[in-house]
């Protein structure tokens, strides 16, 4: 939800300007609404302030589901754009000839005052007006908790209006074709792969690389990053900090640093335990072993140091 702080500045003082501006008779009102409804391709009414009053602030016998949004790019309201199609899905699954519920959309730049009236601080927002005579206090749809999905939304509508109706998503057959294509392609590719890249598949080295790399990712906490989506790196008074202190959280960059260190240590172990045998030249051997040992100890003490940042109580350290 993008909060529009700027809202309060925009709004002119004569906020409650439009109240029951024109009182139409019931008949012409309904005609008017029909006309509005007809204007939009989908089953919703595109509101502005006076239409809002026409639709909401007059005696009426129908529910109204209002989407308050700000499509104007100046607000950069990402959720608004995501929510709109979902909302339209719900609206379109309602039978347009059924007059019990109307779906309406109010864009910010069409209805600043209405926003002020309803004390809407942030967009998008979905409101439900129950049938009554004159002004009612709308009840808000809890977007933060229910998310932008149409399924939750339609549950809300059903609960409020007490009218059962199904959510009909427009079925696009391209999807099925797409999936079918994928499957076929998969099978074919598998066949091809088995034919031509037999070596690679059968080759244990490739499998080894795969497995070991995944294990590396796991032990350096990438799964945590994947689930929790932490910020990449933080800022503590002025300068960038890579390590957040505290045991149960971390930045995304931490995992990468840790990964590199682990790889270095693992490599040095690998060298000492396996590769060292392949070295023919004695001097070379001596030098490499020392280098590798140095890497090992440095990285190790580095890890200890970082861990000290994570939990201040940690007493041990090596080298630095």
């Amino acid at each position, binding site marked *: 939800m993008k909060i529009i702080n700027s809202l309060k500045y925009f709004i002119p003082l004569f906020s409650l300007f439009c109240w029951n501006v024109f009182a139409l008779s019931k008949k012409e009102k309904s005609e008017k609404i029909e006309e509005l409804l007809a204007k939009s391709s989908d089953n919703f009414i595109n509101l502005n302030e006076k239409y809002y009053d026409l639709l909401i602030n007059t005696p009426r016998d129908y529910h109204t589901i209002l989407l308050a949004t700000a499509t104007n790019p100046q607000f950069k309201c990402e959720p608004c754009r995501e929510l709109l199609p979902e909302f339209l899905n719900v609206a379109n699954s309602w039978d347009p000839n059924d007059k019990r519920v109307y779906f309406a959309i109010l864009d910010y730049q069409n209805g600043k005052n209405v926003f002020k009236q309803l004390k809407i601080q942030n967009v998008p927002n979905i409101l439900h007006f129950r049938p009554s005579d004159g002004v009612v206090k709308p009840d808000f749809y809890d977007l933060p*908790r229910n998310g932008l999905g149409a399924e939750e939304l339609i549950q809300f509508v059903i609960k409020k209006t007490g009218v059962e109706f199904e959510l009909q998503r427009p079925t696009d057959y391209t999807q099925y074709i797409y999936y079918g294509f994928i499957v076929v392609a998969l099978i074919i590719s598998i066949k091809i792969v088995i034919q031509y890249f037999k070596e690679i598949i*059968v*080759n*244990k*080295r490739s*499998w*080894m690389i795969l*497995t*070991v790399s*995944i*294990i*590396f990712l*796991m*032990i*350096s*906490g*990438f*799964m*945590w990053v*994947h*689930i*929790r989506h932490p910020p990449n790196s933080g800022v503590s008074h002025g300068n960038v900090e890579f390590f957040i202190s505290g*045991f*149960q*959280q*971390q930045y995304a960059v*931490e*995992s990468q640093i*840790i990964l590199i260190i*682990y790889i270095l*240590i*693992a490599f040095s*172990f*690998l060298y*000492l*335990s*396996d590769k*060292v*045998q*392949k*070295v*023919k030249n*004695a001097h070379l*051997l*001596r030098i490499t*072993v*020392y280098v590798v*040992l140095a890497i*090992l*100890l440095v990285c*190790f003490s580095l*890890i*200890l140091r970082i*861990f000290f940042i*994570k*939990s201040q*109580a940690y*007493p*041990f350290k*090596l080298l630095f």
Partner: protein
Amino acid sequence: MAVSAVNLQSLKKSKDLLCIVILALIAILAFISRLLSVVRFESVIHEFDPWFNYRATQYLVNEGFYKFLTWFDQVSWYPLGRVVGGTLYPGIMITSGIIYKVLHFFNFNIDIRHICVFLGPVFAGLTSIATYLLTSEVCTKSAGLFAAAFVAIAPGYISRSVAGSYDNEAISIFLLMITFYFWVKSVKTGSSFLAACTALFYFYMVSAWGGYIFIINLIPLHVFVLLLMGRYSKRLYVAYSTFYVLGTIGSMQIPFVGFQPATTAEHMAALGTFGLLQIVAFASFCRDQLPSESFKTLLKRALIVIFIIGITGFIVLQRLHIIDPWTGRLYSLFDTGYAKKHIPIIASVSEHQPTAWPSFFFDLHILVPMFPVGVYFAFKKLTDENVFIILYSFTAAYFAGVMVRLMLTLTPIVCVTAGICMSYLFDNFLGYKKSKATVVKVEETEEVLSGNESTPESPVSPKINSPKINSPKMTNSPKIHNKLKKSEHNSQKQDNSESPSITFEIKLIVTLSLLLVFCMYVWHCTWVTSNAYSSPSIVLASRNRDGSQHIIDDFREAYYWLRQNSAEDAKIMSWWDYGYQLAGMTNRTTLVDNNTWNNTHIATVGRMLASNEENAYELLRKHDVDYALVMFGGAIGYSGDDINKFLWMIRISENVYPEQVKEENFYNSRGEYRVDDSVSPTLRDSIMFKMSFYRFKDLYPNNQAFDRVRGTTVYSKPIQLTIMDEVYSSENLLVRIYKIKKPDNIGRSLQSAAVFNSGRRRKRNRKSRKYKQQKIDD
């Protein structure tokens, strides 16, 4: 050769002796290093679940096995009661029960509590031995010793097996390792006896811990992968068939498991693999019989088709709900966002969170980077058992990444792989005895070879290249790729030429530095054990300024108060975390406890705590509650208190009672969860809030009341509690106990009675009169 044979024999003997001694020392070390909690505090059962296990064990010992088997516990989950016999894993209770009986048979009159307290450490010792066996099975004895040493003090395992944490995990890690050991060995030798042993220990594992799912999926995976690698062999067939049939029959004997192996999705993999194995066996048999190419291809096609049919059939059955879908806990392992959305009661538990890297390092320290190296070695020589090691490492790593709790299953395999890595490393750098030792190995293998048709491959044996060994290997398992063997050949050749060129001083330095690293490891483990894992969360310790230790014993204080001062059949309402402790220590009836089998009931308790006094009172009366108990850390800054858990309670009960409880009402107008004056009215009226902060500010002069957990001032107006009386608050206000009032004698509402007793006169019928006058006027 013949000359050295004699001292080789003696050498071999002394080597085994040394090995045994070291292993014994390691086991003892594993035992001792877990006693810190007892030394620090006292021999007491730790946090929550152990208390139930302890209580159940007492019941088992006192009432006998059969009553235990059909134990209907009417003291918990009032008034539903709990069919304990059918809803728990009896393994650990039975284990300590048997130990108890045996000791008493020999007239060692040990209190059952001590057995329960020290069971964890004892089994830790056994675990290190089991790890040794497993590792030495897939690698060398030296690797085994390393692994045993690692696992003996690895914090990741100590966390669950310190003295006093009398929990299923304490024994089941041992069972895990021993089962895998027997499995690997039976695959290696193809003896149905060993496979039967595997099944036996699997059965034990099933009886002990829900984690048996890991075994029953990992082993079939192993089999399946072996089949894919084209490594089908009679040994595999015998091992798996025996294991699966016996193991399944065994596991069905546990009431809690019952028919799940036949009905639930978790077990289907094993079943499918079993079927597949039969087909493959039949196919290979036919292939031996009729050697026509076309038929073989036909078979291959048939296999693939059958396999696909099996998968689809499984999916269809699951759709038709003939096979139960995965349990939420398991499902949340794969769809990581699942639990938070659908099952808050799982998401609420802290040990179901994903694992950040510090936890890995904290629990495994230097072993973490060794882990992949060990896996690399497993790949390098791709024997059946190494395939198993690889699979185990891979899956365990993934699960540990998703759930902190499963760090437990990761720890042993990390120790194993690290042990392998170290053994290779020291084979290079402490290589004096190597030549002789390996000669010994060679002879061993020769002996084995003559009798058995399979070769136990040890990593050192190829180093001195003897065609004697390789030739039978080719004949036995022809499906090993030629590449593999080639690589081995040339590597072996190099070894022979190069190994001497590692001079003494290199060896010295490398060894010393590695010793340094391991010292760090040992220090780390000891530090972690003493600081993090050996505090029985039922007794809290804090350090004073002068560094002396200050024990906070409020829990037991309060529980004992209840035990002494409440009626025998008093019903006590608290959040489920404390259910087991209450039942164990106060011996009173509780409404809900840590065995969260009935979500609705828990939600009801949550609803009581979340609703205002009138509504709460109805519910409390309906459940015959006598006492209500809350944890409040605000006075001493104990962050795990009920106000902090409250949001979870609300979420849980909102799942069941979406109308009555709404989470958003508990945030104030700014959408924050506050306890100071900006508290939301709903939260302010909830009895949880009232019970927590009732007369809290009286502790502080002139309204300076400060909540040390939330770090805010508290709600400044006085809090009225009319439906209950405060009867006890522990020393640091950590536990607060309230007694629910009886309904008023002359039929007033408790609120008005309270107002009356508080002495304030109330305005009487004037109100109604005035109202009437107004109506008359206009």
